[in-house]
């Protein structure tokens, strides 16, 4: 039931963003809101566990706080990685050493692993190729600094892992 309510609420918010029922003709467009409630209910009925397996997590303000902190951190990593890739591209020798490394994550939930994989992919230079069910990630790395799993995990995974654990896990 919690999942359904979560889906319903999220769908309704998205509907309001799509249809902006407050801007037409000055006031509130009640027709749109009523149809939106119906549509969100329909989506919630069709897809019971659409959004999150445990939507109650969304109600925890601590998680929101860490998410707000994580965003600038992630952007910082992203910019650093961008500059690094730029350096590699502009370097006359093109000092790249591409390869796929296997790393381990201690994150358990699917959502957290997905967020981790996406964070790794969004950072230039690293790209998640696959995730296995027992917590291993295959990452394509532009400059393989260490093919050994533990060292690679330190380099790639651990800078995100702690944050994501607090946010999603």
């Amino acid at each position: 039931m919690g999942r359904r309510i979560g889906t319903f609420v999220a769908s309704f918010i998205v509907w309001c963003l799509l249809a902006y029922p407050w801007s037409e003709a000055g006031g509130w467009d009640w027709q749109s809101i009523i149809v939106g409630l119906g549509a969100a209910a329909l989506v919630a009925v069709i897809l019971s566990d659409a959004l999150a397996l445990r939507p109650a997590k969304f109600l925890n303000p601590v998680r929101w706080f860490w998410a707000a902190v994580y965003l600038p951190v992630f952007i910082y990593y992203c910019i650093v990685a961008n500059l690094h890739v730029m350096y590699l591209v502009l370097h006359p020798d093109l000092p790249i050493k591409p390869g796929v490394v296997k790393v381990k994550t201690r994150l358990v939930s699917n959502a957290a692993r997905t967020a981790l994989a996406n964070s790794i992919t969004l950072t230039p230079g690293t790209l998640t190729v696959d995730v296995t069910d027992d917590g291993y990630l295959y990452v394509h790395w532009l400059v393989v600094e260490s093919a050994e799993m533990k060292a690679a995990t330190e380099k790639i995974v651990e800078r995100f892992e702690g944050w994501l654990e607090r946010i999603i896990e």
Partner: protein
Amino acid sequence: MKKLATEERDGMSTIVRTVTRWVSAFIILYGLYIVAYGHLTPGGGFPGGVIMAGGFVLLMLAFGKKRLTALLPVARASALDCLGALGFWLLAVAGLVFGGGVFFRNFLPHGLRLRLWSAGIIPLCNVAIALKVTASLVLMLVALSVLRVKAGGTDEDFVSDIEEE
């Protein structure tokens, strides 16, 4: 990828599944929006229906066919398909009955310009078309993509999947 093939489940990896779970609701919602606002903005029954069918097909690709048929059994999709067409037909004939004997007459009050409730029967037509398009596209893609065709196979391995009525 080798790992994936040996796994005992159909569908794709964790990432695809999780992301699918995050977005599929919004895809279907967006389809509903396109249908509902079809008479005011670009869109309508067909594009909205295609988007919704896309949401269902994404579910099928990520989670496997069982998930989709649990959500929308083939027989029910087939019935919805007919019901959508029937609804459109009824709207057309309703013009004959209520609209002074003119087929497809827009007999409902037209409402205020640019509001959701306007344009008479056209939003209702859009809903009927969307139902038809969604159901038939889902059916079509289930039939085309999930069945495994064996060269020289018998009828049974082909038909068994779609004809579970």
